[in-house]
């Protein structure tokens, strides 16, 4: 039996895998020690849990366990990477290269440094598929560039950037390369050595782990990357991130990484099959639907489409038993439509009309069939109510119309 509401917003967060919960439970009430307590068994047990998790996470991304620094989440990891590098290497330079579709945690960290006069930042444009061109990165490099920060995969449109090429370029120029890999880790193979990544942000709750736990990978060799901490205190995590370790969260994050590593190949096949079925079903039933993001270089669970002539929030309202998200202005706090969709160079109306489906581990084919029908029916109903659809069908070019605002 199909159960509603259906959760199809797995880029926002994922449910905790029950196996992860099982791994975490003993650490709440029995093995509750402080991992920094060095002189009794409670502390040792907690530390064992943390060490195991560090190994599990490192194994997933081909890193060494000591290169994993725990944080409260990817927002903190992004802040630490960007602010920490700029502070530590301030004698060397103050220029950052990033791109316009980065997560706000990256963009706003860069803007904060600009405001404080601590950095100058180049925000690279992306192509119509949302991909950054490595040549643009190369051209933007100056003798003051100390950091390149480009995400692995975009959280809205799923586009996977040419990370390996950018990593090589950074190595060649001796510039530190930070990668926000929140959406990619556990979903697609991520190898920090192969990709030349020096710093990498990760999050627990995007891969069926708990919320409130994240990590940053910090390369220890070739080159050894240094960071100035943004949180001072007891010198935990090799002085880069003070604060008592969130042992339960860390254990859960580790377990989630181990499961993701073991099941990735199989899960990717399943997600691709479901995603492609959803995409084909929607495109068969409706005209004037546009794919946002890269047709092939895209996260397996991601489908972001614009339904022309239908406003995103009104569509979400009509499919209220399905949890998805929209790039519509009306669903954002700022009343601006998605900056990611707008950066693709599509017309503004299509940004208002975009819906992001995020398929995950627990979605089923039955759910995909239900969502396909439900969405198609609602889009048709709203188009029958849409003056834009009517005008387009009458052959009026909407771009030629002088709108009264």
């Amino acid at each position, binding site marked *: 039996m199909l159960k509603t509401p259906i959760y199809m917003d797995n880029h926002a967060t994922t449910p905790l895998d029950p196996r992860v919960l099982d791994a975490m439970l003993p650490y709440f009430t029995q093995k509750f020690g402080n991992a920094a307590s060095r002189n009794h068994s409670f502390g040792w047990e907690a530390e064992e849990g943390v060490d195991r998790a560090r190994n599990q996470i490192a194994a997933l991304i081909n890193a060494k366990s000591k290169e994993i620094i725990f944080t409260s989440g990817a927002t903190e990891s992004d802040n630490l990477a960007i602010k920490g590098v700029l502070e530590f290497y301030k004698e060397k330079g103050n220029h950052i290269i990033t791109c316009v579709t980065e997560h706000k945690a990256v963009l706003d960290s860069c803007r904060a440094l600009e405001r404080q006069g601590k950095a100058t930042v180049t925000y690279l444009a992306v192509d119509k598929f949302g991909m950054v061109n490595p040549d643009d990165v190369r051209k933007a490099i100056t003798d003051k560039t100390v950091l390149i920060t480009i995400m692995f995969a975009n959280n809205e449109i799923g586009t996977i950037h040419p990370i390996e090429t950018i990593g090589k370029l950074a190595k060649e120029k001796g510039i530190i390369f930070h990668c926000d890999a929140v959406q990619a880790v556990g979903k697609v193979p991520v190898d920090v050595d192969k990709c030349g990544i020096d710093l990498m942000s990760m999050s627990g709750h995007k891969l069926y782990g708990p919320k409130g736990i994240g990590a940053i990978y910090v390369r220890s060799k070739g080159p050894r990357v240094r960071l100035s901490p943004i949180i001072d205190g007891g010198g935990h995590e090799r002085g880069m991130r003070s604060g008592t370790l969130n042992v339960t969260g860390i254990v859960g994050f580790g377990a989630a990484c181990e499961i993701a590593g073991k099941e990735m190949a199989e899960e990717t096949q399943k997600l691709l099959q479901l995603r492609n079925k959803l995409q084909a079903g929607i495109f068969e039933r409706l005209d004037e639907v546009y794919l946002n993001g890269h047709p092939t270089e895209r996260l397996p669970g991601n489908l972001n489409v614009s339904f022309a*002539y*239908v*406003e995103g*929030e*009104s569509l979400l*309202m*009509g499919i209220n038993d399905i949890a998805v998200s929209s790039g*519509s*202005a*009306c669903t954002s706090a700022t*009343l601006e*439509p998605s900056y990611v969709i707008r950066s693709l160079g599509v*017309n*503004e*109306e299509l940004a*208002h009309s975009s819906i992001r489906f995020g398929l995950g581990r627990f979605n089923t084919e039955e759910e995909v069939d239900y969502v396909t029908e439900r969405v198609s029916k609602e889009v048709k109903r709203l188009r*029958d*109510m*849409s*003056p*834009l*659809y*009517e*005008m387009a069908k009458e052959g*009026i070019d*909407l771009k*030629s*119309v*002088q*709108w*009264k*605002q």
Partner: protein
Amino acid sequence: MAYSDKVLDHYNNPRNVGSFSKDDPSVGTGVVGAPECGDVMKLQLKISDAGVIEDARFKTFGCGSAIASSSYVTELVKGKHIDEAMTIKNTVIVKELNLPPVKIHCSVLAEDAIKAAITDWKNHKGEPASGTEGGDKKAREA
């Protein structure tokens, strides 16, 4: 965001959706908003020679509150004289639909749509029927 019951009701059961013939000289059409802003309302009013609004139709591209605002307006204006309809303020719509502050622009757009439709009717009133289509098109593009 939680929607009021009245917004949900209008969204799920919109009143008077559709279009009148463009050739009908008794019809005034108002199109307000812009696609890049995420809201476009088309309101059509069928107005008697005496200036009484006999019927109304709408089509709206926009969020649920925009759809509800225009749906409500079609009910509100029916039977009213155009002079009275011209005085309808957006606050009436806000109150009826319990719109939150971020959705007030939807009610403003609906108020503008009433004024635009009546103005269009006044502009082409008395013109021969053959010229109406052109007038209508002109109004859209004006």
